[in-house]
């Protein structure tokens, strides 16, 4: 047996086998270190994603490229480290184009899982909206470049029976993508191809006919979280006596599908209790068009796609004490932002002139001074005004929305269940 050595993780002394990978040793001892590129059988470890960054003997360093040795002192859960690791995962979401509700991998996706585990509501980074291809030309696989996080797993791991690499990085810098060799891919056996799909931590590698084997809702990460704090009851610490004061709410759906509004109403009979406590002012629910008083909270659904949206959002900022962005569209652009990698002109032509329902020669692109002007791309709400809170989801679960809003209005504490947070 290998020599055992003493290491310290977050102040706890641990006896571990010398030379073993730190990520594994930490995990066996109950320390959760996020990881995305690390894969047990790949040696040497890849060290590309950096989401396992810890402080090792005082220096920032990824845990997955560290061998356990005598005297190693590791800090895992310091606040700055947690924030840094979270930032790295946020980077991946901002860098790629991830639309989970339409992704084959949802529920089995390591990246998505990491998003939930780290409690990411929003990426602090601006979405890059790079125009990326989906490559359908390989025989067995579809390469969805929008979702690849360049973890390198497929590049080093997937070889066909000739021993040749099927995947290789192309270009460099932010232009880097994983190229697939059509000739070599053809030679992969079904098992090898499925293996490629399975080791991919995201939905970038999709094998035709194999990706929906497991229904949504029953997948690897659908039910459980390693985070202890999801669903743990939180003590209600509000000291209010009697009935809470009545509050005023305004809501709006900018470029969205009204799904978030539907979700808002999806609390059954609780709605009746709520109406006692809340009055809706400007909102599609009341059909009040103009602000005539100040509101406590403004709920914003949808992204900003035209000049009218900008004005509306600014009016909300002016009249509401707090603004809450609800749903992915308001948070980072969501589905409407799929147009962001396509020039505006092409989008309009496609929508008005070339789409299947338009009659050739009979349709025009409508312009009128009263019609809103389209913006060059779809913007996130916080690119226009300061947003105080974000509630993620597509749409977010009704309970999730109301628990959060109640907390803002009356300082009531609630715990959010994993099933309420992970709702897609």
């Amino acid at each position: 047996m290998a020599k055992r050595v003493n290491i310290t993780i977050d102040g706890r002394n641990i006896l571990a086998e010398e030379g073993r990978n730190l990520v594994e040793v930490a995990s066996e001892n109950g320390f959760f270190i996020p990881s995305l590129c690390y894969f047990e059988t790949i040696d040497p470890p890849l060290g590309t994603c950096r989401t396992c960054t810890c402080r090792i003997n005082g220096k920032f360093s990824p845990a997955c490229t560290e061998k356990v040795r005598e005297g190693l002192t590791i800090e895992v859960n310091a606040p700055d480290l947690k924030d840094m690791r979270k930032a790295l995962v946020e980077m991946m979401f901002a860098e790629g184009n991830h639309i989970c509700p339409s992704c084959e991998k949802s529920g089995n996706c390591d990246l998505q899982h990491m998003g939930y585990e780290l409690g990411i509501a929003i990426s602090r980074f601006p979405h890059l909206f790079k125009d990326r291809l989906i490559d359908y030309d390989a025989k067995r696989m579809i390469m969805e470049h929008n979702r690849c996080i360049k973890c390198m797993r497929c590049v080093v791991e997937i070889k066909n029976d000739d021993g040749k690499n099927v995947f290789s990085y192309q270009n460099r810098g932010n232009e880097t993508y994983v190229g697939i060799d059509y000739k070599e891919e053809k030679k992969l056996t079904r098992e090898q191809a499925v293996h490629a799909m399975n080791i991919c931590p995201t939905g970038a590698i999709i094998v035709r006919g194999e990706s929906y084997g497991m229904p949504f809702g029953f997948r690897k990460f659908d039910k459980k979280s390693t985070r202890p704090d999801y669903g743990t009851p939180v003590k209600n610490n509000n000291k209010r006596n009697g009935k809470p004061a009545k509050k005023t709410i305004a809501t709006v759906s900018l470029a969205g599908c009204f799904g978030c509004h539907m979700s808002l109403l999806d609390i059954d009979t609780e709605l009746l209790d709520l109406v006692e406590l809340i009055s809706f002012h400007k909102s599609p629910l009341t059909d009040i068009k103009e602000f005539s008083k100040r509101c406590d909270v403004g709920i914003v659904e949808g992204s900003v796609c035209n000049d009218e949206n900008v004005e509306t959002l600014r009016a909300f900022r002016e009249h509401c004490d707090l603004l809450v962005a609800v749903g992915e569209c308001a948070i980072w652009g969501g589905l409407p932002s799929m147009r962001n990698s396509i020039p505006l002109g092409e989008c309009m032509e496609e929508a008005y002139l070339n789409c299947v329902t338009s009659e050739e020669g009979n349709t025009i692109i409508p312009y009128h001074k009263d019609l809103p002007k389209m913006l060059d791309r779809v913007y996130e709400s916080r690119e226009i005004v300061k947003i105080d809170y974000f509630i993620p989801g597509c749409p977010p679960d009704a309970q999730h929305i109301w628990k959060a809003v109640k907390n803002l209005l009356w300082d009531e504490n609630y715990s959010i269940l994993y099933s309420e947070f992970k709702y897609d």
Partner: protein
Amino acid sequence: MDAQHANTYLIEPPRTQMLNRLWEFQRAKQYISDADIITLAKDYNISEIEIEGIVSFYHFFHRKPAGKYTIYLNNSMTSHMKGFNRILEAFERETAAKAGSTDPTGTFGLFLTPCIGLSDQEPAALINFYPFTNLNTLKVRNIITQLKKGVPLEEIYDKPKKNILFTTEDKASIFFSEFKSGSAISSLVALQPDGVINALRETRLSGRGGAFYPTWMKWQAAADEKATPKVVVCNADEGEPGTFKDRVLLHDVPETVIEGMIVCAYAVGASFGLIYLRAEYTWLQNRIEKALQRYRDKGLLGKSCGGITNFNFDIRLQLGAGSYVCGEETALLESAEGKRGEPRTRWFYPVQKGYLNLPTVVNNVETFSAVTRIVELGVDCFRSYGIEKSPGTKIISVSGDCKYPGIYEIEWGMTLGELLDKCGAEDPHYIQESGPSGTVLTLDEQDVPFAMFAEFFSQHIRCGGALTIFNKNRDILDILLNYADFYKKESCGICTPCRAGNYFIERKLERLKNGLANHEDIEELKQWSIIMRHTSRCGLGKTATNSLINTIEKFEEYFDGMIQQDKSALNVGFDMEAAIRDYEEFKN
């Protein structure tokens, strides 16, 4: 070629010829064709996509014809200061090629490239890798006219000036004084390997590539490795914008570099050497190869080097292909092995598993040069220069807003103010030391000395080799945007914080440039920079935001003047006119 020669000292797998093969194809028809890719894939028995991956990593390799004359115009900051825009226009006008493409006849290809190591003679360009310096619009017209007439490049290119402007107060020079080949090798037997390493220890020689890792420690570690054969690599990739000291050493005293490698091989027990030369210095290749041949002819390289029995060592030169990150030692090794230049993790250090997984010492050109001089002149002579903890001299490449850009061999201990005086700095305001990955200095730091380690003074400037001076009229944001663009393009792309981070930083700086940023944006810039510094895989990402962080700290008023002052920031900066411009244009 020498490759075969050197091969008897180490059997290199055929794959290590990858870049050379690609260069042959590229030179023959100015691009690499589909057929070439298939040929290479067959020859090396690897997939075509892997070859494509290598080709697309290096920016001097093209998949489309790049012109009978391929012009690379430097777009680094020093070039911009000396009129880059005019020169670019002139090239576009004279050649009818737009930047990034060829003219319709395919005669000229015009491309931009970061620093080509001629910052003291900007604007400068490479045409088929021949240097052209101190360009002006008239000169550009002449060059193109001549080329159109068929005058060979060899006849019209500029031999870059060496520009050695200062070598210590008593005009003595450690690096540039006359050198007789073999004068260091002749002391080796007396010193023995331990003696060599000890001499380096006593002179505190530290890596001149910028990291200042003690050279003796690296060599000791390599000497202690059991595995053989061992490898010595000279890092001649000098890519840090504003740096050109290695260029002058390789041009003027290549023997001292070669001999330093031989000394190293002797000390650590290596049998194979590799000089990784950046392709921007292709014009130096011949000079170096000739120097190597002279060494072989004299019996100083090859079997029984310098007459020392059982000491067999030879050196091969490997040309890069356009990638800054290949200066990072592990990326360099990957590249020399014929792969994409992606830095390795620290799972193994090069001295354990380096080139072809063999124990490998990687040192900078100047480091090897210094080694030779230490062995030649002796520890005491070396130590008589400089200061206690930083003995010897340091070569600094000075450029930018100064009367005398060029090479300054200073003694450690000289202050920033003294050097600024010497080079005739003009109204220095924003002073960049060690290139974009170094530190930004201001005149407040005039009295701070250049030194490797802290001494009696609290501050010191650990300069890797470049000092770029910007005066008050230079827009700091333009400088930062130039750097951001550089890092974005030169990032190897395999780790998240650098690949994505540099892009985010650039976006944010553009917001600042457009007057849309507020104090929160500045705060975020700082935080993101720090995240990149702590989480990036290699030095590129770790240092990419150094200048930015420094600037935010040292030029607070500058940023204050350009951000929106509304502290509540309820309305975020948003340019409606710009956002609906596309719509208005499309409508018409």
